């Protein structure tokens, strides 16, 4: 199956396309419902469980402006699935068109190693990482707003800003407490 490529298709007028990838297929549905309510421009949401995407939809699929990986920290499988999906994405996307969204970060059952692993992953790929709360409508709305901000830039609606430029500002850097220098 072909990799998803960022610039292989023409953009549509006043339309932004976002792909939400989530192994559990839960949060993406509520996010999608809120995302399409945006009125300033048309938002098309594509939902997937994992990558690669089926070949059959290749023709009808529009150009994807932003790929969001939703990772639920309470499930190990969620993170593993996202890691595998990442391999099926064209490297061109990592110049500002990929974003990580993490839920349940405050849950007590989450071992710190998992959160650190996600942060490291995001840092190594130079992608922004957003924390979201998926249980309340307010949480969904907040997450949607932040996604829309990034989506607008990625789809080219914001003059003088490109996705690459924005990603330089928002990308997750390796936090200092993970890699402590050793003073041996």
């Amino acid at each position: 199956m072909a990799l998803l490529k960022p610039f292989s298709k023409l953009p549509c007028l006043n339309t932004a396309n976002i792909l939400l990838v989530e192994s559990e297929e839960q949060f993406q549905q509520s996010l999608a419902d809120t995302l399409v309510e945006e009125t300033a421009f048309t938002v098309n949401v594509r939902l997937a469980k994992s990558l690669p995407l089926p070949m059959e939809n290749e023709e009808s699929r529009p150009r994807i402006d932003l790929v969001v990986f939703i990772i639920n920290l309470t499930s190990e499988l969620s993170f593993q699935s996202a890691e595998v999906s990442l391999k099926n994405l064209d490297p061109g996307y990592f110049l500002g068109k990929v974003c990580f969204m993490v839920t349940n970060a405050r849950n007590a059952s989450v071992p710190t190693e998992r959160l650190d692993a996600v942060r490291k992953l995001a840092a190594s790929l130079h992608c922004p990482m957003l924390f979201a709360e998926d249980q309340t409508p307010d949480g969904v709305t907040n997450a949607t707003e932040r996604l829309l901000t990034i989506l607008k830039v990625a789809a080219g609606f914001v003059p003088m800003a490109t996705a690459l430029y924005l990603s330089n500002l928002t990308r997750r850097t390796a936090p200092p407490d993970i890699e402590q220098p050793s003073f041996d």
Partner: protein
Amino acid sequence: MDDSTKRLLQRLIRRIPAQTLRTTLEKWGRLTAAQQRSMDFTQPKWALSEKLLAICEENGLTAKHITELEMTNVIDNPNQGMWYAFQLMDPEDDANSIELTQFKEQFKSHLRELVRPVSIKIKKHTDEAVWIRIAWGDSFSRPNHLKPTYVVHHLQTPYVFVTSLTSKQKPLLSQALVLSARYQAIKDANLSGRKLTAIRDLLMRKYQQVFPTMYPSPLGERNQVVSNPHIEKEQAEPAANRLQMACEAFGDGTLPQLQTVVYKLETKFRDHTNKTMTEREEPFSCVVKFASTNLLESLRHCASSGIASTPVTPLLSSILQKGRNYFVITDNGSGPSTQTRQPQT
């Protein structure tokens, strides 16, 4: 009324759920209309129990009548206690044409031959099920009404459901059943649960079965959620396939409320990354128990959401196909079907 009968009545009142007490008493029919009206069902159970005791004494009711009340209660609330399913094997020629009266007489006479004294009550329920209540006694004591065994048999089917049976009583009951139902043997069906309705529906396949088809009909028709045209699922087809396979394995619609399934695994450990363990001769023994308020629905959801890979492994789909919830898995396939499990009292 003697003490044991009083105790029986008191225990029974405690057990009958408060909501159904009034209707159960009405069905019992041993109270006059006036007496029925005089019972105040808003009082706490112990007060009602005293009142009822007084009324029963007034009416001169005996243990026999109390056991009728118990039976009515159990028939109306069958989902209490632990039920075990058995299957009759090798029918004789006339097994399918057994009539109720014939069965009743035969059963009573056979059981009375084997056990004396014993108190047997047989009642036919509206849905073709024959309910049998047995209070066991022996040469030293009268029938013990505090620990009765209940048996449910659907005539013309080989299935029997039993609750509260001790291992000593089991061969006696088996013998009586086999002879009166005109079969040659009886075996443990390896199916048990708290809800009689659930295990009965499972064994008799009273759920919506889905059969594998060459050209699956679009399941999308059923789940017609009005979706926004701007939202599109990329992997709708794989999702539909998963749902189809999940339904094939676990049925569609409302499923019988089975609660647990237990697998006793005695297979070899096979892992190519771990040489030491793979080279072991002995099997890796462990016991896996799945539990849920509605097990089949949980498993179906596991399969349709991808947590369990589809096609569903035969270990899980056997629950519905074979109508069992206890399996012993060895390397040569499932364990023998005559695997006995001791029903607890």
